[in-house]
């Protein structure tokens, strides 16, 4: 199983908050590190992959079980944008 460098519990948060929390977490991570996100809002199934595509990160896997969605994101390149406003 791939190494997980950081965990994000985004359960009960509604979109776009899981995306914002993932974005904030990734802003502090390095290229090649992996973020595991657990969420309950089905909106994340579209929104987190969309955010990753436009910001140059990779969704390695997405699984859904018992109303929970688990995504593994690999931080790529130097694409993590400079989020300064939080």
């Amino acid at each position: 199983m791939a190494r997980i460098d950081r965990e994000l519990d985004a359960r009960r948060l509604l979109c776009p908050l899981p995306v914002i929390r993932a974005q904030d977490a990734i802003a502090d991570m390095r290229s090649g590190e992996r973020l595991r996100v657990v969420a309950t809002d089905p909106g994340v199934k579209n929104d987190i992959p969309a955010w990753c595509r436009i910001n140059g990160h990779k969704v390695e896997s997405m699984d859904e079980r018992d109303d929970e969605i688990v995504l593994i994101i690999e931080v790529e390149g130097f694409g993590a944008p400079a989020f300064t406003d939080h």
Partner: protein
Amino acid sequence: MSTQAKAVSLVSGGLDSMLATRAIMDQGIHVEGINFFTGFCVEGHTHAIRQEDRQKPKRNNALWVAEQLGIKLHIVDVIEEYKDVLLNPRHGYGQNMNPCLDCKGFMVRKAYEWIQQNDFDFIITGEVLGQRPMSQRKDTMPVVQRESGAGDLLLRPLCAKHLPPTLPEREGWVERDKLFAFNGRSRKPQMALAQEYGFTDYATPAGGCCFLTDKAYSEKLVDMWQHRSSRDYQLDDIMLLKVGRHLRPRPHFKMIISREEGEGKFLEGYRKQFLHLRTHSHAGPLVLIDGEVSDDDIHLAARIAARYGQGRDAEQVEIEVIALDEQHQMLQVRPFGQDEISPKWRV
């Protein structure tokens, strides 16, 4: 200025900001999007909660627009800072609790701070002169420029030709001749430009994107403020106003009654924060009680809760009451008849 001019675009997910962004990208400017989450954004929330809406395809329109345009999007949580905009709007509210002019000034100010921190050159918005009664009038557009601090670093490509030239135009980063002179509430020019750009799929033009423009939501918000000692709010407070049927049978307590399974599941997440009721003998809603209640109040709430379950026509319905300390109590109640639910209780 950097070699290639860089702009940040306020991307709402609607058509206008999509067009404005594309117009500036076509002039060779590097554009990135920014989207502010106030807590009142319609985007995503209710269709994530209600079961019937869960069947519909979901997308965050701001992210979708950014992907269509091939730009980065920065989503910024402004929930805390936005409280001051909502609670103390310098320019007042619109038809409901929408502080549109202050809100626009706030967002442009945040974008202005962002470009300073990230070495960008100017800001663009999809505003159209005369399109909105508060924030997009000839006399209020300069207010946004002035109060945000952005001044002439704020370019509105869709109606730029109606406005004095901004710095990006005067410096030649952007050709004014290639900007637009849209004006008024008609959507035809935007639709024609969308067609020209090949945009065939976009969010409902000029669709409301903020719960504060919604009459029913605003009434719930005002009711909440009227029954609390402070107008301060937390994200959970404003989220709960979007969910369920709200009844206030007595001034000191309110009931939040799920209307379907999706809402019930969502309200389940608040069980530890509220005394709540479940219908035990029949299928029925989950009901949160917001406020301090007596035994008589609980009995009243139980009869109301029974009215909204499948036992509404039964002689007796068994209601389970779960207190904050998780103590359970069973009540046998006669459901209220339809005419016993006072219209005045509805929030």
